[in-house]
């Protein structure tokens, strides 16, 4: 007997796989809506915790998907979510790779690249905005977010140092 949650996870992430222009980060608001509001797999707080964990762990940022699956349906959920998130887009990529190489300098290819770039920027910006609203419950948290933006844009500090400093500040009760 396959649990209904596993089927939901598989269906949702197979759809999101083909919508994730700009990678996993671009669909964070959509994942949040489906995981919290539609399917009630977790609370807002759980979602932010999983997001924080995925950022603190080594590996690609698509790992957030496995943590959402894990929270919803354990290890099986993690594996199903990851396979569903990577499967459809990988099959598409496999099929398109050959044609793409042949049309290297085609005007349509260049137009599509120019067209998708701003869509991705807008989606990532929206993801950052939505995550800020969900994660920042205190004014101190907003300061941490703002400081991170400034440090990322003005210094070459490795993201891990920033996350570590924020974790230390939080553990000390400052956030």
């Amino acid at each position, binding site marked *: 007997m396959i649990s209904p949650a596993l089927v939901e996870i598989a269906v949702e992430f197979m759809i999101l796989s083909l919508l994730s222009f700009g990678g996993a980060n671009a669909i964070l608001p*959509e994942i949040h809506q489906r995981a919290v509001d539609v399917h009630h797999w977790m609370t807002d707080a759980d979602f932010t*915790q999983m997001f924080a*964990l995925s950022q603190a762990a080594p590996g*690609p940022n698509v790992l957030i998907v496995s943590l959402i699956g894990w929270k919803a349906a354990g290890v099986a959920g993690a594996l199903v979510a*990851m396979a569903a998130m990577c499967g459809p887009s990988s099959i598409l990529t496999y099929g398109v790779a050959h044609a793409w190489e042949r049309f290297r300098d085609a005007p349509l290819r260049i137009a*599509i*690249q120019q*067209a998708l770039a701003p869509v*991705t920027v807008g989606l990532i910006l929206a993801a950052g905005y939505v995550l800020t609203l969900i994660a920042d419950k205190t004014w101190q948290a907003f300061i941490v977010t703002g400081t991170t933006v400034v440090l990322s844009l003005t210094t070459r500090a490795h993201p*891990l140092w920033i996350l570590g400093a924020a974790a230390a500040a939080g553990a000390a009760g400052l956030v």
Partner: protein
Amino acid sequence: MTAARPGGDRPLPEVTTGALFTAFLKVGLSGFGGVLPFARRMLVDQRRWLTEREFIEVLSLSQFLPGPNIVNVTVIVGRRFRGVAGSIAASLGLMLMPLLIVLLLATVYAQVAQHPAVRGATAGVSAAAAGLLLAMAVKMATPIRRTPWQIGIAVLAFVAIGIARVPLPLVLVVLVPLSVAIAWRRRP
């Protein structure tokens, strides 16, 4: 198997399925805060499976298609050398260790999540992680910031998803064709 590639400037190096798996396994273990730079170093500098130009082409296709960019890179590179088996070996190699580590981390975290210091640390990391996303969007906007129509599309995408909370499929169905049409009309 040595075959000329379309657009390739040298014969295809001999790469086994096992080598694809182990090479990407190492890449998966090294990536803290982004795996792509490590994938580039392995593919171009260390193993010389791709030239710099070939890597940029693989990357641009990976970013153009939906799906996690780094997974798309493994699929394309694996396919180039060993077809379907190569794609599967490369992407499994990449994801295996990070997946194990993050699930282990999540299991440990669940045990200590209620501790006040851990809750505080989580709040701090969440706030900073949201800031990293915002900063990433600003950095990604650099190539488009001098093109008014591209700024307009980015703002529309942001408002639709971030503020109006329009479902993503609807946003993409409207915005992508609109954006392609504008880009096409303005082609040189």
